[in-house]
């Protein structure tokens, strides 16, 4: 096998054939993919399907805590899981820049296979395109996913059952992924051991749903951070929420880096965090289950739904003041001075 990806690997000819056989089929190994039919032929025993897609572009493609491949599996698995669905099948499309290292591609594919196994899903179909040098940045990945969802969970993604008094929970520290990427870009020459929180959360979510408690809303707080989710939540459902800043955990390293750069961790990306809304009386039961899971052990109640200031997320600041949480118009930028 060549040491670099050539245009021919995307041509549909022998090189493509070998790439599929010796890399993708080898690692993603499952009977559906092995059939190598034009479409993956699936037996799904449900009329209720959740379907999602996402494209992954990250610089650098390898970062502490993961790589673009792991991210592409976790991200799509999480999008399905937070909707209340059980993720089943994924498609994967690679857009590769000519000259990309075959070894690096193999590392990425192998971690995708590992993450898929951990999440309990199958990668059943895919595509590869190779573009001329400079036409993409190393590697772009798109994954789409299918999950099955029970009728009773359909209100989770819309949040239509949210009521005043519901509690808002998050499953751990925020802003780890975004700052890990920043540090990996050598931004500001930081030497840190910050790791991305990139993880598939479907097992944690399954355990939460298995408590039979009424989950009112769930979403993963990725780009835009938890602030963006909280704003969307209040706007879309015309509810008011109040968040207690002192309850929101940020690890010391992440906080230090944010402070130095003038970043607000509320707006920094996560890849393994969910915002969860529950009726007050079911919080203890669900939290007890969450704390048993490695991705939920630091779960904490950070706020609640209130019956004033509808449409607005209000933050009780760490010094006891109050202010609005708003969506960012653009990327966060380090302060000038």
């Amino acid at each position, binding site marked *: 096998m060549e040491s670099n990806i050539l245009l021919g690997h995307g041509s549909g000819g022998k090189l493509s054939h070998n790439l599929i056989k010796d890399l993708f089929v080898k690692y993603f190994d499952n009977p559906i993919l092995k059939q190598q039919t034009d479409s993956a032929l699936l037996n799904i025993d449900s009329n209720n399907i959740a379907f999602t897609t996402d494209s992954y572009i990250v610089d650098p493609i390898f970062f502490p805590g993961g790589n673009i491949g792991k991210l592409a599996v976790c991200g799509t698995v999480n999008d399905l899981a937070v909707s209340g669905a059980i993720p089943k099948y994924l498609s994967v499309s690679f857009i590769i820049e000519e000259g990309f290292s075959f070894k690096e591609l193999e590392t990425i594919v192998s971690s995708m296979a590992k993450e898929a196994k951990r999440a309990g899903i199958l990668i059943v179909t895919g595509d590869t395109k190779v573009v001329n040098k400079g036409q993409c940045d190393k590697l772009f990945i798109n994954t789409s996913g299918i999950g099955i969802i029970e009728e009773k969970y359909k209100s989770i993604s819309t949040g239509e059952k949210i009521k005043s008094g519901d509690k808002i929970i998050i499953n751990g520290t925020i802003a780890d992924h975004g700052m890990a990427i920043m540090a990996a870009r050598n931004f500001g020459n930081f030497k840190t051991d910050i790791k991305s929180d990139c993880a598939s959360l479907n097992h944690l979510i399954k355990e939460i749903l298995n408590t039979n408690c009424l989950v009112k809303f769930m979403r993963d707080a990725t780009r835009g951070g938890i602030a963006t989710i909280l704003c969307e939540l209040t706007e879309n459902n015309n509810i008011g929420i109040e968040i207690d800043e002192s309850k929101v955990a940020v690890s010391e390293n992440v906080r230090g880096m944010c402070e130095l750069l003038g970043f607000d961790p509320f707006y920094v990306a996560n890849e393994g965090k969910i915002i969860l809304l529950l009726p007050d009386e079911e919080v203890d039961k669900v939290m007890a289950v969450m704390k048993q899971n490695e991705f939920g052990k630091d779960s904490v109640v950070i706020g609640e739904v209130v019956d004033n200031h509808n449409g607005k997320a209000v933050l009780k600041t760490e*010094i006891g003041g109050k202010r609005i949480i708003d969506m960012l118009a653009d990327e966060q930028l380090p302060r000038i001075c």
Partner: protein
Amino acid sequence: MKYIDEFRDKEIVFKLLEKISSLTKKEIFLMEVCGGHTWAIQKFGIPSLLPNNIKLLSGPGCPVCVTSKKFIDQAIAYSRLKDVIITTFGDLIRVPGSTSSLNLEKSRGADIRIVYSILDALQIANENPSKKIIFLGIGFETTAPSSAVGILNAASKRLTNFFLFSSHKIMPPAMAALIDEGVTINGYLAPGHVSTITGSHIYDDIPAKYGVGCVISGFEPTDILQSIYMLVKQVVGNKFSVEIQYKRVVKPEGNIKAQEIMKEVFRLRDDWWRGLGTIKNSGLCVNEKFSNFDAEKMIQVYVEETKEETGCICGEILKGLKTPPQCKLFATVCTTSNPVGACMVSHEGACNAYYRFNK
């Protein structure tokens, strides 16, 4: 986190608030000059905690906000030149010029790169000998020394393709100009980072000439509240002076080395401030000795006629005469995603901070 949490201690915050309340019920107008203070005040929700008689006004200390539209227009004109790479702090690229913005030019193919320090720009100059690299120098005494260091480095490396387009400004003349204009200010919360460089004496004229106190403040909530307390105490006692609250960083004499570097590289000139107009000796341009690195001298470019936007009251907001919600464009036409005036662009801008934290 050590050295942060101590300065955000809720108990101390509430003690300070009590002390401020106990001083007077009289209405007092304090201006936070620095955009960094505006941002911190809003971020921590300080206005929601202060007694109603203490009014905070946002001042002209946001680098992006006071930069003239003409400067943006000229930067846009430079970016359209084929052999030019523009290097800039990120905020600036979203500021609307008369008919375009750097962001728009970037999408049309101009080579505009966001950097985090002038040293990154020097690196780009090193790597691109056939291009002219222009760094857009904005900001006050806080960022001017680093621009000066950039030029000294460029000179010692004998770079011939590196240029500074300076819109650097200094703070005290603008603070005096505001009082001259008749804006009601009972005390200035003066920028701590400026005085880290300049020391505290640059404000000596303000209490002496105008009977307005200055407290040089840090940026944490207890810093800000302690500074407010010190200012209110000055007003109540009718004794005005320059005091340093931010003692852990600011020395009365400042950073002598940085001052010397600034003096070597820059000289004062009259400069135009958005909202305040031309203020005598308030801007910094590159000294003759370093004119080889001065974009204005070395790179000729046609700049379109600058058109001011209508309806935007950034000027009055920068003077503390009006607050963002008093602008008819605020949160309707002018939002953080579609800023009309510069005050809505920078996160240090009064409109941006008000929009994000209070709207």
